[in-house]
Structure formats: structure tokens, C-alpha cells
């Protein structure tokens, strides 16, 4: 199979997905949500809050960014990839192209991943700059915090994206199931003793933050997983979920009653 031609198809699907996720009304809504860290940092600076520094920023960001913003943005974007094309009856236009269904899912996922990073990373970096600037600390001082959050965003975005894509091909209501998973399971699981937290994505994100940041609210977070191990687990989970989604998508039929 000519690689060049396949890459061409991949780039078209990638570009279409990116443009859909970022440009239409949905893109604006998710961008507003993704900008919450920046809004937070900005308002704190404007309000001249003396105690506002990188530590306070982390205290606010861990619950808000990890438990609300990241999940919402990834959920709304990932479910749009396949489920909405099925609901909108536009999938036949893709099915009648010489691109296999797994390939469609994979190319769309790559578009999703870049879109989510484009939505989440800039506000995060700007928020860091504002915090450091306001606190008068040099930009290079707390790079471990920035690196940790960016790592968590990338790995979390990938893992949640793959999982919600899998939900999209498994159930007709991925958004509702995703909401329940995101707001009930992920946020509650942290406070359950024993090994239960291991079954959540957020546990590994917290482990990354704990391991990479010297001084932070998660210093005491009970985890025996290093940042590297957590990253490896998340990547393995992402790949597994994605492959499963591709296989299920390949075997699924679309009984959309015209």
C-alpha cells in the first residue's frame, strides 16, 4: 500500500478533525473552559492577592484542573470524534472512502490529541508565566511544576481521549457515561482506601505531580508509583484502549434508521 497516499489520507482526516474541534461553536466553548487556569491566575494577580505564588497556584489547580477542566475538555472533544458523526448521519461519507474503519478512528484520534493540547497547553503556560511574574520569582525557578502539569495534561489528555473514544464505540450515550465516570468515579476514588485508586487515571496523574514537584499540595499523596512508572502505565493504557476502540469500531454496524 503506497505509504505516501495513506499519509495523505491521514493528514486530511487529521486536519478535518482539528478544524471541527477548534473552529465550530464547540471549539469556542471548550477553549473558554480550557482557559480557566489562565483566568484564575490573571484574576488573582489583578486582585493584588499577596499570598498568590506558585504554591497557592498549585493548591487551586490540582482539584480544579485535574478533576474538572481536563475531564470536561477531553470528554466533549473525544465523544465528538465518532459518536457525533454517527448521530449526524455523516459517517457514510467516510465509510465509502478507501480508508479502513480502524484507520478512521486512529487518524481522528491524532487530530483530537493535537486539538486538546492546543486547547490546554497555552493557557497553562501563560498561567505559569503570570504566577511567576506576579510573585517576582524568576521564570526558570519552578520549571518542575510547569513540566509536571504539562506532562499530566499530555498523558491525561491521551488516556482520557482513548478511554472516551472507546466509550463512543461501546455505548450510544458516551457523554452521559463519561460524565458519570469523570465526576463520580475519578473524583471519589481518590478517597477510597486500599488499591481501588489504582483503577483510576487520576491516581497516576497525581503520582506524576507528586514525584516531579518538590514542594506542592500532593507531597503527602499516598502512592508507590514513580512519575516514570505512572507515565508508562498511562501510555500502555492509552494504547490498549485505542486498539480496543479500533477493533470494536471495525466490527460495529451502524443501524442508523435513515
Amino acid at each position: 500500500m503506497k505509504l505516501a497516499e495513506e499519509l495523505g489520507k491521514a493528514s486530511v482526516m487529521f486536519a478535518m478533525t482539528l478544524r471541527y474541534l477548534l473552529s465550530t461553536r464547540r471549539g469556542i466553548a471548550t477553549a473558554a473552559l480550557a482557559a480557566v487556569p489562565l483566568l484564575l491566575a490573571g484574576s488573582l494577580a489583578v486582585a493584588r492577592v499577596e499570598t498568590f505564588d506558585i504554591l497557592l497556584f498549585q493548591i487551586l489547580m490540582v482539584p480544579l484542573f485535574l478533576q474538572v477542566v481536563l475531564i470536561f475538555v477531553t470528554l466533549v472533544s473525544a465523544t465528538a470524534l465518532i459518536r457525533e458523526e454517527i448521530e449526524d448521519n455523516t459517517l457514510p461519507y467516510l465509510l465509502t472512502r478507501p480508508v479502513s474503519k480502524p484507520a478512521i478512528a486512529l487518524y481522528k484520534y491524532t487530530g483530537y490529541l493535537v486539538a486538546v493540547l492546543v486547547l490546554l497547553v497555552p493557557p497553562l503556560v501563560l498561567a505559569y508565566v503570570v504566577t511567576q511574574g506576579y510573585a517576582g520569582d524568576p521564570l526558570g525557578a519552578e520549571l518542575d511544576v510547569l513540566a509536571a502539569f504539562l506532562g499530566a495534561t499530555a498523558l491525561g489528555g491521551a488516556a482520557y481521549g482513548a478511554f472516551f473514544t472507546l466509550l463512543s464505540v461501546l455505548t450510544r450515550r458516551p457523554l452521559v457515561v463519561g460524565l458519570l465516570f469523570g465526576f463520580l468515579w475519578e473524583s471519589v476514588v481518590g478517597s477510597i482506601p486500599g488499591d481501588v485508586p489504582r483503577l483510576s487515571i487520576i491516581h497516576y496523574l497525581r503520582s506524576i505531580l507528586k514525584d516531579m514537584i518538590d514542594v506542592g499540595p500532593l507531597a503527602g499523596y499516598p502512592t508507590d508509583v514513580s512519575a516514570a512508572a505512572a507515565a508508562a502505565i498511562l501510555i500502555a493504557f492509552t494504547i490498549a484502549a485505542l486498539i480496543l476502540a479500533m477493533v470494536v469500531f471495525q466490527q460495529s454496524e451502524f443501524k442508523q434508521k435513515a
Partner: protein
Amino acid sequence: MSISLPRFTRRETPLLGRSHRVRAIVFAGLRRELRRPAAIFAIGVGTLITTVSSIFFVLFAPFLLQGQPLDLTFFYLPASNTAILFFVTLMAAIVGSGLVADDLRTMALTLYLSRPITQADYLTAKAAILGPLVAMIAILPLAITPIVAGLLGLFAWTIALHAVGLYLVIGVVLTAFYSSIALFLSSLTSRKAYAAAGIFAVTFGLTIPAQLLASAINQPALLYLSPWEDFLAIARGAFGVGGGPIDWAPALIILLGETVFASLATYVRMRALEVITG
């Protein structure tokens, strides 16, 4: 003897007024919602839990809070029960999200608007479907609690009835807010799942960050951002409980303002919704 084939007959009776037409929508909507399993679950469990927990507060509180005078301020406790917040949000999400969104998805909106009612009639009727169901959680459990306390002789009837009156007032404010917000979000999209997500975002998305931020930088004024905190402030004001981080007057103005704004925004959105098909 006459044969009457199914000829189409003429209507003799005149049409009833607009209020009848609006009521027809409300009652049909309520009947339909009360047959939906999800709605039945939310109402049943919601009312049960809020009522039981409110009564529990009243019965055991005298022992827990030794020495606190058994007066009106006591009834603030059931009102601050977070179960109310959760189940009101759940009800608004389950019933409220589909109110207009479903009519947009199925295009049944055209059937309504091609009938002799105005868009305002349509919206009021839809809000009047959600209102009673939210009130089942926001008002009913609270109103029952003082009556139970009165019957059990724990409180003088004057105080108990006064509490019931106050619960009605603050309950209506909360119901009106959530009804108008749910209707507004429902009118924005034909996919009701997004409207439901929006309602969750309004409740948790505003409350958690406001509480976090306010405590972190001890700026209590930020609490006004959270509808739930506003409601608690109003309840404190109603029951004469002092010492809250924010006071009830601005909270009431903000909550009512948001309700009115949401209703106007919904009306403007409906008028702008000229469905263009070829």
C-alpha cells in the same frame, strides 16, 4: 336511517383561550415526565433523602447542639443540607435538559409554534413543567420538617409555621433559579446531553472553585459567584443566623438577577431561532 361514512366533521365549539392551551402543555409534559424511569428515580430518591435528613437534623440536633436555644435560627440547618443541591441539580439535568432540546432535535417545536400560542407561552409552559418537579425537592422536604417538629412538640407552633413560610420563600427562589437556568441551557442545543452537562457545570463548576478560591485567598466576596452559597446566605438571612461569610441582601439580588437574565436570554434565543430549511 342514514349511513355516515367517516366524513370529516366540522368543529362546533369555539377554541378555548391561551391559558387553557398553556395548561394543556404543562399537564401533558408533567404526565410524560412522571412516566420516565429516570425522572421517577430522581424524584423518589431525592425527596426521600432530603426529607429524612432534614427531619434527622431536627430530631437529633437538640442533643448535639447543647445549649442552643430552640428558636427560628435552628431551622437554618436543614436548609443547608447539600443533598438539596445535588438532587435539585440532578432533577434539573434529567428533566430540564430535554425541555426545549428534545423539541429542537425532533423539530416538534414547529408543531407548537404553528399553534395559536406565543413563544412566551411555550417557554412559560415548559418552565411550569420543571418548576413543580424541582420544588418537590427544594420546598416539600423543608416544609414538612417544621410540621413534624411541631407535631412532636419540639417547637412551638408559632415558630414551626413561621419556618414553613420562610422555607416556601427561599425554596421558590432556588426553584426559580434552577428552572430558568435549565430552560436556558436546554434552548441552546438540540443535544440534551450537553445541556445536562452545562447544568452540572453551573452547580459544581461554580461552587467548588468559589469555595476553594475564597478560602485560599480569604476573599469571601468570591462566594457570591456560587448559586449555592447565595442560597445559603439567603437562608441565613431568613432564619436570622448571623456570622456568615456573605450577607443575604446582595446574594438575593444576584440570584434573582441571574434568574431574570437567564429567562430573558432564553426568550431572545427562541426568537432568534428562525429555522431555515430550503
